[in-house]
């Protein structure tokens, strides 16, 4: 026996001097390389067997050694795990992927599954969006290292728990398309982001009234109401543009829970101010201060969407403009109706007071949900 060990040890030395890489201990990485070829995206994704074992339990006989048999019997599971962890979208439309080949390779820290796949997009992609969500729940220090061969350039990116989305354009960025896409995102966000609608509504509802001697009185001229609205919307816009830009360019970064909670507080404050006015004339100042907070909220959305590096400014302006368009639509819906109803007895009582009370209550629920991570209403 002892001679046997000796012999093998000599062999080992031989091997390590001759060929084998010295295996490293390192954090978990996967290597994803994609090549866009017409409508088809060809991918190769190298994932450490150690990580796949951690996620799926490859070592069937539990002897601590993963054999080829143990890997290839689980190819289907590996493929479905990997394919469900990676979403490719071309210009917003999903490109379904299917596996084509399973191989093995050795990287600096051990053996890797080499997973080859192909994804077919409905049309030749101009903008590619990648969503990577693999292994982060097992190891938040895992990183997905992307190499993308798209048009003339090769681009790289790193996916992490905080950066699961990434989007990019074919070289020679199509600025117009990017711009339009982000204007749409901006509008969409205002329309689906109920909190911004409620905040603006709370500020706009009293714009057709003035508060004097502890009661609301309707304004007489449209121009007066219009001026109020313009001041509010402009202040809100300037404020959120400031923080949105600062956040997107990386100068400020606040945890999203904090920002979302602060947005809920802003809605509550705006609504309560209608019930017992503290700020009466300078509502635009309220809009400005809270607008700073809403801008951070927009930024979180924009960053989550994944920003095109080459067209960052275009995307930012487009998104901002989209938000404006969304806002103006809200103004367009509220202002004429409010102006027409301003003299009626129920406008100050039912619409303004009742509406504000409802808004305050909804926002309170949000505040509780967001600050305590609860889910009260889904």
């Amino acid at each position, binding site marked *: 026996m002892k001679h046997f060990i000796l012999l093998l040890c000599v062999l080992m030395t031989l091997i390590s001097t001759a*060929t084998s890489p*010295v295996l490293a201990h390192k954090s978990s990485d996967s290597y994803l390389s994609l090549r866009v070829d017409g409508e088809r995206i060809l991918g190769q994704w190298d994932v450490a067997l150690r990580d796949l074992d951690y996620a799926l339990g490859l070592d069937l006989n539990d002897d601590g050694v993963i054999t080829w048999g143990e890997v290839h019997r689980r190819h289907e599971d590996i493929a479905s795990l990997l394919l469900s962890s990676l979403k490719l979208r071309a210009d917003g439309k999903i490109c379904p992927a299917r596996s084509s080949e399973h191989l093995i390779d050795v990287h*600096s820290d051990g053996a890797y599954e080499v997973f080859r796949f192909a994804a077919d997009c409905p049309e030749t992609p101009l903008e590619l969006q990648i969503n990577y969500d693999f292994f982060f729940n*097992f190891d*938040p*220090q895992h990183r997905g290292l992307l190499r993308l061969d798209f048009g003339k350039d090769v681009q790289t990116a*790193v996916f992490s728990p905080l950066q699961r989305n990434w989007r990019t354009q074919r070289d020679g960025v199509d600025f117009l398309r990017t711009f339009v896409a982000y204007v749409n995102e901006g509008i969409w966000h205002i329309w689906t982001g109920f909190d911004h609608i409620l905040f603006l509504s709370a500020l706009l509802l009293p714009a057709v009234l003035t508060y004097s001697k502890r009661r609301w009185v309707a304004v007489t001229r449209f121009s007066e109401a219009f001026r109020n609205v313009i001041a509010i919307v402009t202040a809100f816009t300037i404020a959120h543009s400031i923080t949105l830009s600062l956040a997107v360019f990386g100068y400020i970064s606040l945890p999203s829970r904090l920002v979302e909670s602060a947005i809920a507080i802003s809605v509550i404050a705006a609504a309560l101010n209608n019930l017992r006015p503290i700020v009466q004339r300078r509502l635009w100042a309220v809009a400005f201060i809270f607008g700073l907070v809403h801008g951070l909220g927009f930024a979180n959305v924009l960053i989550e969407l994944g920003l095109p590096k080459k067209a960052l400014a275009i995307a930012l302006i487009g998104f901002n403009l989209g938000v404006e368009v969304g806002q103006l639509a809200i103004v367009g819906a509220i202002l004429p109706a409010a102006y027409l109803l301003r003299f009626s007895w129920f406008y100050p009582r039912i619409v303004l007071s009742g509406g504000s009370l409802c808004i305050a209550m909804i926002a309170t629920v949000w505040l509780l949900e967001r600050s305590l991570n609860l889910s009260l209403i889904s």
Partner: protein
Amino acid sequence: MSERAKKTADCHGRAHAHGTFRNVLLPIFAATWLFFQGNISASAPYLPTDDSQPLEQLPVVGNRELRGLRALHAELAKHPDDLALAVKVATKDIEAARSMSDPRYNGYAEAAIAPWLSRPNPPVQALLLRAILRQAIHNFQGAMDDLDAVISSDPRNLQARLTRAVILEVQGHYAESLKACLSLAILADDVITTTCAASVNSLGGQAKESQAALMAALNRARGDEDPQLLLWALTVLAEIENRIGDDASAEQHFRRALAVGTHDAYLLGAYADFLLDAGRADEVRSLLQGELRVDPLLLRLALAEKMLGSAELAKHVDDLRERFSVNKLRGDKSHQREEARFTLHLLGDVTEALRIAQENFGVQREPMDARILLEAAIAADMPAAAQPVLDFLQASGLEDAHLQRLASQMTRAER
């Protein structure tokens, strides 16, 4: 087993320590197999042909502790609301990461406490663990924020205070670090407080006094100290003695620290540096032969091989190059000190080495960080680049024979 066979088995890792069939033979089978299949050198994707072909050896092999850890993770998945369990699992993960120098376990630890950290008021235990994890990836500011939060809600938390002192020291904030060390006095063992304080003070112009104080504390010690603590104290002592040029004492204390028997990559690295400075490259080679998986230790081995003119050097340089480039890809900058040394001494890329050393010195300021920046500045013949180090030496009063030699070499060159 004959002495000779024992030695040979020793050369490949933990064979001697565990002596199990699996531990020695299986990896060897795997390697021989791959060798004869001619696949490993290809480094191109291939299709294995035989089901029984071993591809990867998991760290659980021959390690009962790690097997238990896996079971604990499964248990935690079933009881995500059990904070005590999450903390236990994460703590064991961090210990595993440390003892094996395998950062993947830090990632698993982070996953174990992640649900608690996303709560509005994360529990103190989870924050403390996150601080340790953040420190490991050199996110010092993040770690300090967590530690401050821990200490403000649990002022008697020894681990938090100690970790805080260590980070402040690494950053070169000696006065604050010393204050943090002294705050340990009412909470901790004499050896802990003295080691902490001696470590800081020795960098701030009181090396001899610190050595004496630490020796005294070790002599007073009852002898039933935690091995980890003893190892830390002895390492700090040996490093102080190395810096003041008391090589005989340094040697003696490094050896005592190694004899504690806990595998510690930091200690091995520090001792290897000591040996390299003394020109004892062959000893470095035998010390680090089984440590190839750990980047900083592979670096020291390669430096020794360069001195020895060893045939393995080229391959180890290639391996290190690949590892550093992967680190760079994932945005990990926690090995910049080693990367600067590698770039300067093994690649000979002076400009790049200087750049990395400068960036590194902005993050951490231990003597070795100062040293590599001085060395790179001298090699690049850019004395101005070393000015921050000279200022730092002046301000701190740091006594370090190697640094002083380099600094005077630099000022001589300037004249």
